[in-house]
């Protein structure tokens, strides 16, 4: 059923190419390929049905082949999922065997790549499900369920391998066979292709000389090396290590810089060329410096096979190093990037050189007499640039500094840094000074570093703090004096923190909420203050001063977790936590100089261990649970200053491990629903419109988007009224050749002279809507009132004092329940999530009521319920001891086996039934 020439058809179809060309640099539609026995008309009906269900608009299907259509669809993951699920259901009910492959286009990639991968996806889907209708969905916006693109890139490389078969004469390129047939021929003629490859002289040579078996990556790079100038000698050197001196004496390595890497690869080693292009990921021909930058990626497979192996370890290492020798010279003896340096010198699993041997082999001798050579200067510039984004740093920055210091002491001379008086210079100086202290070095450079830091640190701190105060605030004198005077002890840092907290500007997300830990603009992720805080830390490690001690004490009191993270990041790998146990120890030891409170340290460890150390996390959970109530309360002082996502998870995990535990933050559901409803609240015009049926309501839209048929002259009537309060919409009634103005806005009235609407949006009603029906709504409650009604009704309902029907009756016009989700776009992450509340509510009736609100939309509610039931089910099997806590957090729906899916489906059915009795028959809303 799958058309083998599908991609080729797409490439030649003008409608398809037009659609691809029209994609802008921010567009990320889903490509939907449909292969079905249904006739086109039936497909059209199915998609119309699906689109109605998902409340989406669709473009026309593009017919590619008799059974295959393409559609490009804009929409979020959840909408697309509803669309394709509903469309497939429709076709299945009509007994039409159908496969749908959905691939989200990433705007940073090429549309043609997405289309090619979509074709591959469809082909694979059909091959794996010949007898069943199925959907394959690959959407990077759904990070939890994203199969990724690695397999598609690998299919591309298979395609590259097929093109590698050399044609010795210059010929016109033949028409490409389809991807599918190329893959098939690769799979089924592997024996034949293996035989062909092994006839190549470089491979015969390899088989004869290598002391270990050839691997795919070596086979790929072999022709590249073999066809270089003196390639046979170079290849022999790679295989055996022999004649390296001869190669150097005859300048055969040196003269490799006559060759352009990408062009040579394209001409002699197409598969390797494809690998280069994939790694460099450029739309055009790769520049040599781009290849240099991505060499570790280009050689990732090769290094895995040759360095990360115990068998024939030394021989393989040697082979890899000799390949690097060749590329080092091809790339003009430019030192390799950090990743290759770490691979060869630092990584425990792969290191095979020490710094000195690496330097001799892969760092060119100095040819000009500079204090810092160009590369070192550039490395310093890059270091200083990276230190500006101090929030995103990790241990690798220390490694880079250490490496530069090993090359030359001159990097520690701030007079060679092109000083501009920026805080990143002070930070770098502080880190180098701390390293000097650690290595027992104290020379004129150490002195210069000290001076650079201490000269400006206090004034920079005061300036930065003063720049982030609330409007019309000034820095309290007591804070300024406390920071300035050198003879004060750091004993009343907490009191100073209170003074400072009162005048510091808050981040927008925190202005409307109450939180145990306010988020200050001063400590936002883009603030320069992070550099100063880190400078104090490193300066203090070198030699504490009373200023650095006071600043650290103050910020540990003001924002302990942000401060601790600022210090800890230098001991961590960005994604894996502390780099080694020793570094972890060093970090905690460094904190002993400061008075980090027990609750704050406990909270830091909770936050860290949640992500990186489950064993220790369980210990912390047990320590908390087993504490006396007073001690628990004490620890909660720190825990509740964590972000809600962290402390909610902690308390939920405490409950999971100890079901008798009562979740302390249960009262927060009110705040959380306020945040949910902030996104679900209807605007004035929508609220007005919801009082009318679909037939009565012709249009509710922005003025500039009014459908053409309603772009008519507007006439006032004797009945025209004005809304009693300020609004930004107008109510009109359609009358065939004009629109009657029924309700005007007082603050943005209709311009009678120009016939111009000044409001943002309009509600257009059908001709048969009576004046009475319209004017009965003129006293539309303002937003604040509606909010209050929602909050009060919600609380009444959750506490069981009113029914769902009463709740819905009070709020149905005010809320768009379509918005309800466990993951609302733009949701304020500082408020906390409703899911932990639901999961840990021990009152089953209350739990059901909480769920009933989120699942109240007739279509989307089903999907929200599915997500909630999954979480309930995972907690159930965790409580039954079938999975560990780690697994509880990691398991996704796709990981469930058939038996688990059945159990989950049973839970879903049961919960749906229970909800049905709560939901009853709700009032229909337009």
């Amino acid at each position: 059923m799958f058309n083998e020439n599908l991609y080729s058809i797409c490439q030649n179809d003008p409608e398809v190419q037009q659609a691809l060309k029209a994609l802008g640099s921010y567009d990320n539609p889903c490509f939907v390929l449909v292969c079905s026995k249904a006739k086109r008309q039936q497909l059209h009906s199915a998609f119309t049905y699906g689109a109605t269900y998902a409340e989406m608009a669709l473009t026309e299907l593009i017919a590619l082949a008799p059974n295959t259509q393409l559609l490009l669809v804009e929409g979020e993951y959840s909408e697309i999922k509803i669309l394709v699920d509903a469309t497939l259901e429709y076709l299945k009910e009509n007994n039409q065997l159908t496969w749908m492959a959905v691939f989200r286009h990433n705007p940073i990639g090429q549309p043609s790549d997405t289309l090619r991968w979509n074709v591959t996806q469809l082909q694979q889907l059909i091959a794996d499900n010949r007898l069943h209708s199925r959907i394959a969905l690959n959407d990077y916006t759904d990070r939890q369920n994203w199969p990724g693109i690695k397999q598609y890139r690998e299919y591309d490389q298979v395609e590259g391998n097929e093109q590698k078969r050399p044609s010795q004469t210059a010929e016109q390129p033949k028409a490409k066979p389809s991807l599918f047939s190329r893959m098939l021929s690769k799979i089924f003629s592997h024996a034949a292709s293996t035989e062909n490859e092994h006839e190549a002289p470089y491979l015969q040579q390899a088989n004869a000389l290598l002391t270990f078996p050839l691997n795919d990556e070596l086979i790929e790079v072999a022709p590249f090396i073999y066809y270089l100038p003196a390639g046979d000698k170079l290849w022999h050197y790679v295989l055996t290590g022999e004649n390296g001196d001869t190669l150097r004496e005859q300048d055969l390595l040196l003269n490799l810089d006559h060759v352009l890497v990408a062009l040579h690869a394209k001409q002699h080693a197409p598969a390797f060329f494809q690998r280069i292009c994939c790694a460099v990921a450029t739309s055009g021909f790769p520049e040599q410096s781009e290849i240099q930058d991505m060499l570790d990626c280009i050689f990732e497979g090769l290094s895995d096979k040759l360095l990360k192996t115990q068998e024939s370890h030394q021989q393989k290492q040697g082979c890899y190093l000799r390949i690097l020798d060749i590329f080092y010279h091809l790339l003009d003896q430019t030192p390799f990037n950090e990743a290759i340096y770490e691979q060869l010198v630092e990584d425990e699993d792969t290191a095979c050189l020490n710094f000195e041997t690496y330097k001799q082999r892969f760092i060119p001798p100095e040819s000009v007499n500079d204090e810092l050579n160009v590369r070192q200067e550039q490395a310093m510039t890059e270091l200083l640039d990276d230190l500006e984004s101090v929030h995103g740093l990790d241990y690798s920055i220390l490694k880079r500094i250490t490496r530069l210091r090993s090359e030359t002491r001159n990097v520690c001379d701030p007079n060679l840094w092109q000083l501009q008086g920026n805080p990143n210079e002070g930070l770098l100086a502080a880190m180098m000074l701390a390293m000097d202290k650690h290595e027992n070095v104290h020379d004129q450079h150490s002195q210069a570093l000290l001076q650079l830091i201490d000269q400006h640190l206090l004034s920079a701190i005061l300036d930065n703090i003063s720049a982030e105060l609330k409007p019309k605030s000034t820095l309290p004198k007591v804070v300024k004096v406390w920071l300035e005077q050198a003879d004060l002890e750091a004993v009343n840092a907490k009191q100073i923190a209170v003074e400072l907290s009162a005048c510091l500007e808050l981040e927008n997300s925190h202005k409307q909420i109450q939180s145990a830990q306010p988020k200050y603009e001063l400590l936002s992720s883009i603030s320069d203050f992070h550099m100063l805080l880190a400078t104090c830390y490193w300066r203090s490690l070198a030699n504490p001063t009373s200023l650095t001690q006071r600043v650290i004490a103050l910020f540990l009191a003001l924002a302990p977790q942000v401060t601790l993270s600022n210090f800890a990041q230098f001991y961590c790998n960005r994604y894996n936590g502390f780099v080694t146990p020793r570094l972890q120890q060093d970090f905690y030891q460094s904190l002993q100089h400061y008075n980090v409170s027990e609750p704050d340290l406990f909270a830091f460890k909770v936050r860290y261990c949640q992500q990186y150390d489950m064993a220790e996390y369980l210990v912390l959970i047990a320590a908390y649970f087993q504490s006396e109530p007073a001690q628990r309360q004490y620890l909660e002082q720190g825990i509740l200053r964590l972000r809600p996502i962290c402390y909610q998870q902690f308390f939920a995990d405490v409950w999971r491990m100890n079901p008798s535990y009562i979740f302390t933050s249960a009262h927060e559901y009110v705040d959380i629903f306020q945040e949910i409803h902030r996104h679900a609240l209807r605007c004035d015009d929508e609220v007005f419109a919801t009082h009318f049926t679909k037939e009565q309501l012709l249009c509710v839209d922005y003025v500039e988007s009014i459908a053409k048929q309603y772009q008519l002259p507007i006439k006032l009537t004797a009945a025209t009224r004005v809304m009693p309060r300020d609004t930004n919409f107008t109510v009109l009634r359609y009358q065939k050749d004009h629109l009657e103005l029924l309700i005007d806005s007082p603050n943005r009235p209709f311009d009678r002279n120009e016939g111009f609407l000044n409001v943002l949006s309009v509600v257009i009603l059908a001709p048969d809507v009576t004046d009475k029906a319209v004017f009965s709504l003129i006293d539309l409650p303002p937003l604040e009132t509606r909010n209050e009604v929602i909050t009060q009704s919600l609380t009444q309902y959750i506490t069981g004092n009113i029914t769902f029907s009463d709740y819905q009756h009070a709020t149905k016009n005010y809320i768009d329940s379509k918005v309800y989700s466990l993951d609302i776009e733009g949701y304020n992450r500082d408020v906390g999530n409703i899911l932990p509340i639901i999961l840990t509510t021990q009152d089953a009736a209350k739990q059901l009521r909480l769920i009933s609100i989120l699942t109240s939309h007739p279509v989307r509610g089903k999907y929200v319920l599915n997500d909630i039931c999954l979480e309930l089910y995972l907690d159930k099997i965790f409580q039954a001891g079938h999975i560990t806590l780690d697994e509880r957090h990691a398991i996704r729906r796709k990981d469930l086996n058939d038996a688990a899916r059945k159990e989950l489906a049973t839970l879903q059915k049961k919960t749906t039934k229970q909800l049905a009795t709560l939901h009853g028959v709700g009032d229909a809303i337009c």
Partner: protein
Amino acid sequence: MLDMQGILKEYRPLQMFSVDVCEKSGDEYIEYLNEYNFTWQPEPKDGGIAQLFTGEEPLTFHGKRSDPLAVKALKAKLGNNPLRLPVISFCWGQEQSIMLSNKIADDIYFSPILGVTRTPATIIDATKQTRSGYTVFSFHKVFSYARVESRLADVPVAQRLMIRIQLTAHKSMYLVHQSLLTRWQAAGVTELAYDFDNQSLNLKQLIKKGSYTSSAGYQTFDSLADYQKCKLT
């Protein structure tokens, strides 16, 4: 460059003027030509516009500017006279490729160490006329000044007349041998700057500064006729 000790002291920056031809017509101004008319790009391929070319096949280029009204106005004004094209100009992008008239390109040779490919080029000019006799030099490599001094010192001058030099990780500049600049100046190539201030001739300062432009500024013409005659304002 003045601060260099070795071969680089014989080089000067390649800096190009941008063109601006704006003519008053009644109460309005018609912008006949601007710099984008002479910034060259090939047809897009796979959604991207190439900036580096390999010389494996001839290519056709057109200016970056796409303004049908300006094309119409130009054609009407020029009649049958061909539009004057620059003998040297940059291709679109990060200045990895330079378009040269064969009049000057044919005299320039490159050692393979420099990593330069030559692509025969046809230009579709701003009046949609096809113009042949051009070559695009693509500089696939960027060199540190230390590498130039160590590796190119023994290469004959005639094979290293233009070098692409690294300034920062993401920025480079072109240096042209004085002899070539002198030759171009004598041949009447007006698109380039031949005089430089001291700051522009201090390579280490340019590297430290981190920002650089190859633009020498604008050459403005009051009328298309003046532009054709190369008569500056």
